[in-house]
């Protein structure tokens, strides 16, 4: 039972940071594309790279949660 709570808390708290981070990244990326539409493809690539890094932190939490759940 306590395992289930731990898993829920790990995922819940762990997703706050990456969620904010991805939101900031995309908002700034779109702003940049709006200012300079010619650079859209370059900005998009870097934005997606940045999102992947931010997402990785959520994925670490997911790995911890999965380990708690299944091991």
């Amino acid at each position, binding site marked *: 039972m306590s395992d289930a709570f731990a898993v829920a808390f790990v995922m819940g708290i762990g997703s706050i940071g990456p969620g904010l981070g991805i939101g900031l990244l995309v908002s700034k990326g779109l702003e940049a594309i709006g200012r300079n539409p010619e650079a859209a493809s370059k900005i998009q690539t870097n934005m997606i790279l940045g999102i*992947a890094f931010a997402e*990785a932190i959520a*994925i*670490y939490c997911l790995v911890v949660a999965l*380990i708690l759940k*299944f091991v």
Partner: protein
Amino acid sequence: MSTTGIHISLSAEPIAHLGDFAITNSMFTSLVVSLLLVAFALVVNRSLKKTEHPSGLQNFAEWLVESLFNLVYGVTGDLKKARLFFPIIATFFIFILLNNWLGLVPGVGTIMTPLSETVEKATQLESGAASPEKPASITQIEEAKLLETDIKAEETVLAKIKTGQPQELVPLFRAGTADLNTTLALGIISVISIQLYGYHFSKLGYFTKFFNFSSPMMFYVGLLELISEVSKVISFAFRLFGNIFAGEVLLVVISSLTGLIGPLPFYGLEIFVGFIQALVFAMLSLVLMNMASLGHEEH
């Protein structure tokens, strides 16, 4: 382990043994991927023609190599460096991409095969001598209880062996990158090649980044740099493993919840994630290699 009937295992399961060496389903799948890549390279190499208008397979291979080379060239901005970095970066990208996508092919994770035990373990089980050592501080009653459960477990195992029923079924295929061992190996290769390229470009000067005795502050910074190299391995390994394994778990859970066309959008998502993660791994290795090659004074 899960009790809901969904087969999810955090680690890859052995499907065969070479002596004591366990061959896991992830290793098997990576081997299949490697063979596919080698076969593709051989076939393309044989059908290469010198022409202005390549078509078919040659066209595809040229497009793949060219776009990857342009990616590398775009980051390094130097033809010599791009030539140097291109092979390992392209290998990372293609190998990881194919591994990620092979995990989505129907049949991967659903074709089952008996779990392979080591020969020693199996014989131990049969002779009933497999009781594990117990800590000395345990009380007599607990010991008796443990012994009882041990005997019961052994009996069921023995019964299964006698009736010829396989003990446990495990998937024959499992995406290579859904195993932490594979991604850890890739991460270690990447970080070691970063160090080697750093050494190649600035010789022993590269290591002053880590061991700098000019001031206590620089010494401390070097220590931090050393730690950050180790953490790079971990972040490489866990990022790739986490994304791909999480994708597999997601697909399994969604399939068990909805079935039929329910998981379809998630397959689309996983194809995208597989591509992005391969790109991220390759790009990050490339950027770090490029940074190492610049030397620490220049940037």
